[in-house]
């Protein structure tokens, strides 16, 4: 029996693809992928490149669209962070059970992306301090609040917004929400309450806390670069 079990586990390990995630040595667009891998205890290579190393890699054409992050799965290269995290969610069981739930999850991922692009990359490109400050103020005061209102309303359609964002189990969408607001708050050096106010989005605030309290995630957050 022991030999049968050993063979089963060995061939299962042998069948698991090798995952190699390549990005810069920052959280940015790769952090959600890292979170999903760590939360599910899925082994992966967490490659962090310096600028010069990226220029070298870029020249090889390995990144299909000249951008990072990329995820290599047994040699196949996937790029764009949304395709990467959707894929990781599928293979690690962090996706929804039904097509409509998956669609609602994808919708939320696109919505989060729409929020982010209102700030990125302009925030990092803008050199004029006054213009940059105006960009930030506009983002926090005009762009984020309507989105937060819509996200909160959308969340409440799922069982009143008292559980996970889609369906009835935790999915990559929950981690994406946590990650987005964590990223915005640390990038802008503003308290998360400014971006996700408890009085305007109580359900979302509670969701973020629920995600942070997941033991496997908490462990990663405490040790991550």
């Amino acid at each position, binding site marked *: 029996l022991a030999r049968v079990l050993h063979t089963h586990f060995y061939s299962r390990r042998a069948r698991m693809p090798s995952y190699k995630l390549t990005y810069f040595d920052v959280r940015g667009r790769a952090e959600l992928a890292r979170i999903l891998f760590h939360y599910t205890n899925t082994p992966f290579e967490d490659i962090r490149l310096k600028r010069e190393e990226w220029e070298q890699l870029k020249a090889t054409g390995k990144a299909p669209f000249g951008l990072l992050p990329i995820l290599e799965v047994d040699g*196949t290269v*996937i790029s764009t962070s949304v395709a990467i995290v959707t*894929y990781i969610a599928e293979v690690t069981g962090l996706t929804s059970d039904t097509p409509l739930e998956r669609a609602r999850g994808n919708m939320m991922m696109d919505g989060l992306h729409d929020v982010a692009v209102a700030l990125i990359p302009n925030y990092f490109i803008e050199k004029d301090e006054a213009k940059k400050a105006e960009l930030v103020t506009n983002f926090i005061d005009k762009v984020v609040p309507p989105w937060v209102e819509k996200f909160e309303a959308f969340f409440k359609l799922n069982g009143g917004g008292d559980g996970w964002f889609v369906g009835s189990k935790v999915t990559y969408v929950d981690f994406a929400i946590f990650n987005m607001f964590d990223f915005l708050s640390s990038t802008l050096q503003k308290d998360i309450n400014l971006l996700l106010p408890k009085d305007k989005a109580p359900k979302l605030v509670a969701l973020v806390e629920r995600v942070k309290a997941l033991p496997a995630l908490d462990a990663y957050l405490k040790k991550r670069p």
Partner: protein
Amino acid sequence: MPSYKLTYFNGRGRAEIIRLIFAQAKVAYEDKRIEFAEWPALKPSTPFGCLPILEVDGTVLSESKAIASYVASENGLQGNTNLEKARAQMIVGVIRGFQDTLYTALFEKDEAKKATLTKKAFEETLPTVSGQLEAQLKQNATGWFVGEKVTYADLAVFDVFSEVTAKNPAALSAEKTPLLAALVEKVKALPNVAEWLSKRPQTGM
């Protein structure tokens, strides 16, 4: 079969990819087109304050890429394996990103800025993306972007390139990107797509 109602403006824009998927899948849906004047009243009732939306037996989906992915997945047009689905999503994301670049240029009010953005889109971004898409086709080596049959990735690339070449035929070169040019023709020739192209409303955008 659920009842599908797609709501958008009277144009191709960000909804056409969804219409192409429905067409290729030969799935019936209500193709609701609203006037701009109707939009302010409708907007607050949409999940994210934008169009298109797809109502599926009462559930309302928004975000055209999410809708496209859903309709594709329900109709065998998403790719078969998780990796194929990821590659399809990547390609759709990239070509839609390019479409967003075109729209940003198109809707820019400052004439000088508009000229700069348009020039950059056509002279820098388009050739780069075309070359990258050509490489993806070459890698997959089946004539389609993903797997061995048409997926919504092919439809999405066709959608954007047919828009671009309608006004700028030189934007897609069979010499520079032969596989990409061939792909656009292949999609156009799919019987269900060809039928839709011949009967769809002719609108400016």
